[in-house]
């Protein structure tokens, strides 16, 4: 293994062979079970306790060669892979049943935003710890009064000369109680039109004045919180992009979040093919309504998979798919809800006991079409920005 991250892989002609050999040699046995449910994710961070020695080794080995963030530049902890190579990597990982070594809001959301809007110093400072799984981030966008109307955020950062003074409240902050840092949308100009007075600010959750309070979900889990800022002092250089232009950063980040949710939606909580779900069901072969629903869902899911593929083929150089992410998010999450409805119907009363585990997944999917922008908001984005329908 080399210390200069990723040098082994990028630019090799026999990439598939190389990567397969590396995976076979380095992926610990217990990380080869193909699991990817919410309970099996390795989130990393200061407070992280590894579920097993294997999980720890797998993260360390991948991080050492840039494979926790394969497409990021090597300089920031990635492996500098092309999209084509990344696809091959994912295929080889799937073949081996390899788990994802690390998932986080830093990888999915903040990273892409920093790569586009961050200063060189910010990239150097914040990206490598994300890649190594040392710092875990949470997203401070929503507020009690600003959900779909996100640009209505009222939590504020006042310019105190040598620092920002932050006050206000966020809500639905996923994993705020576990995260090390937060990226937040804060109002920095109260007189400007609402989209023009917001800044994108990074804060250490250990700062004095930050508190969190968990909220329990219908699935029984409690992965999100209310987050309070009470005279929190934040260094001036922790603004990403220009002051008062945070909305641009926020929107760009959201397109990545939406792609992530739509892709994750394909398998989340229901990694098993619908054919197998039906086969296991007592009425899977005899109930014509269940079968018809499953067939329709399968057809739409295959078309969705191909569309993800096509959009990625369309997007050049890792630029993301832009507004069309609204389509992926809408279609992917609505589909995932249908899939889990089927899982429940196929499983019958067996699914109704908490310990069975299917009900929490089913309930969790209901959030897919709310988090990251609701389905209705996605349809509005499509009709306004893509179709040009409007007042």
């Amino acid at each position, binding site marked *: 293994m080399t210390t200069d991250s990723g040098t082994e892989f990028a630019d090799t002609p026999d990439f598939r062979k190389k990567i397969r050999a590396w995976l076979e040699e380095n992926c610990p046995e217990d990380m080869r079970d193909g699991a990817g449910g919410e309970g099996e994710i390795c989130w990393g961070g200061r407070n992280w306790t590894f579920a097993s020695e294997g999980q720890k080794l797998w993260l360390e080995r991948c991080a050492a060669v840039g494979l926790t963030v394969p497409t990021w530049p090597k300089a920031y902890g990635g492996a500098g892979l092309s999209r084509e190579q990344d696809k091959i990597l994912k295929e080889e990982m799937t073949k081996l049943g390899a788990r994802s070594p690390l998932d986080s809001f830093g990888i999915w959301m903040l990273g892409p935003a920093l790569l586009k809007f961050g200063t060189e110093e910010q990239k150097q400072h914040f990206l490598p710890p994300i890649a190594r799984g040392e710092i875990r981030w949470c997203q401070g966008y929503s507020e009690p009064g600003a959900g779909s109307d996100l640009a209505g955020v009222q939590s504020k950062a006042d310019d105190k000369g040598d620092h920002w003074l932050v006050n206000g409240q966020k809500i639905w902050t996923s994993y705020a109680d576990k995260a090390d840092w937060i990226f937040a949308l804060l109002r920095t100009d109260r007189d400007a039109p609402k989209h023009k007075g917001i800044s994108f600010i990074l804060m250490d959750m250990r700062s004095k004045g930050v508190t969190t309070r968990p909220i329990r979900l219908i699935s029984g889990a409690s992965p999100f919180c209310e987050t309070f800022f009470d005279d929190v002092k934040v260094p001036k250089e922790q603004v990403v992009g220009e002051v008062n232009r945070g909305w641009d950063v926020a929107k760009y980040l959201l397109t990545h979040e939406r792609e992530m949710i739509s892709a994750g939606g394909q398998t989340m909580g229901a990694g098993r*093919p*619908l*054919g*197998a779900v*039906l*086969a296991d069901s007592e009425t899977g072969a005899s109930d014509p309504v269940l*079968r*018809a629903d*499953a*067939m*329709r869902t*399968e*057809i*739409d899911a*295959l*078309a*969705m998979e*191909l*569309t993800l*593929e*096509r959009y990625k*083929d*369309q997007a050049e150089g890792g630029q993301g798919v832009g507004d*069309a992410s609204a*389509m992926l998010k*809408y*279609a992917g999450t609505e589909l995932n809800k249908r899939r889990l409805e089927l899982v429940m119907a196929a499983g019958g009363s067996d699914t109704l006991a908490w310990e069975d585990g299917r009900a929490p997944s089913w309930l969790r999917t209901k959030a897919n079409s709310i988090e990251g922008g609701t389905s*209705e908001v*996605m*349809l*509005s984005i*499509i*009709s*306004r920005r*893509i*179709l*040009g*329908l*409007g*007042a």
Partner: protein
Amino acid sequence: MAKLIQTEEENMLQDAARALLERSAPVSRLRELRDQGQTRDDALWQEMVAAGWAGILVPEAAGGVDMGHAAAHVLAREMGRTLTVSPFLSTAIIAATVLRRCGDARSQAALSDIASGSRTYALALDESAKFNPEHIALKAEKRGNGYVLNGEKQFVVDGSNATHVMVLAQGEDGLCLFDLSADRAGLTRTSTEMIDSRDAAQLVFENVEVSGDELLVADGGGADLLRFGLEAGQAALAAETGGLAQAAFEMTTGYLKERKQFGVPIASFQALQHRAAHLWCEIELTTSAILHAGRILDSDPQNATLAVSLAKARATDTAQLAVREGVQMHGGIGMTDAYDMGFYMKRARVAAEWLGDYGYHAAQVARLRGF
């Protein structure tokens, strides 16, 4: 696999096709033909032949341009946009695909005739109201070196105009496929007045004598022969239907922007915006399935069934939604014969049934996905 985006070559083909069709085959041309009681446009077909479209799947040695299925889908989609009346699908896609699989000199000659525009085909398959290629009653009995055909076919698309018919028949050892010239003793063709104003016919075979030479045989055995033709046809029909859906959608959003009620464009009503956006999403998903089917047919035709059925099922469903929403969002004008949306609705209905409906293809997908 090749990327799921159109190549530069395909983009150029699309531009050329759109220009030709907008000039020579706009929807108003279909209306004209309908009003004249016509189901053929020979001048248009000759124009397509000259542009190389008839030979899109014909090898260069036989005078074709041999551009492959994905390219053929580009043409089919454009024809779907303007509801073009032509024997393209039956002839240049289905018949050409079947004939290509038979390596013999006779089939080569037939392919040349397709590319040069001197022959057109219809596929005589259905015998009942639903597509069911495994249950064929039309009988082919051996007599001497040839066969005698007896039975009936219905919903034979392009059946009254075609110079040739491919007939699926039940032989003594199973299904067989014949390639016949349509003008012959014992074969009666009665055209049906179809809702889409296109050609379809009922064919009655009464002791039709055919030579052994007219039985098609594939290089690798006859069983696959029709399947390749059908899958090529189903995918191209999906592409045509996809184009139809796209055009109906564009007509609808155009109208939403233009029509005013309550003093504002109706496009400003969120109830309509969201329905239009939903329809657009459905079209996007279907577009991916169609592109994928073209790529698979070109790269791995032995294993294209899943991709093709996925495309046909999705396209069928999406087009139906597009025309239903199309009529509804136009209000009263959408119901008038003078407005084009009705033509789209009627063609979508016919395309839904031809070569297997949603249920047929959904069952194929389910089977191949382990249901």
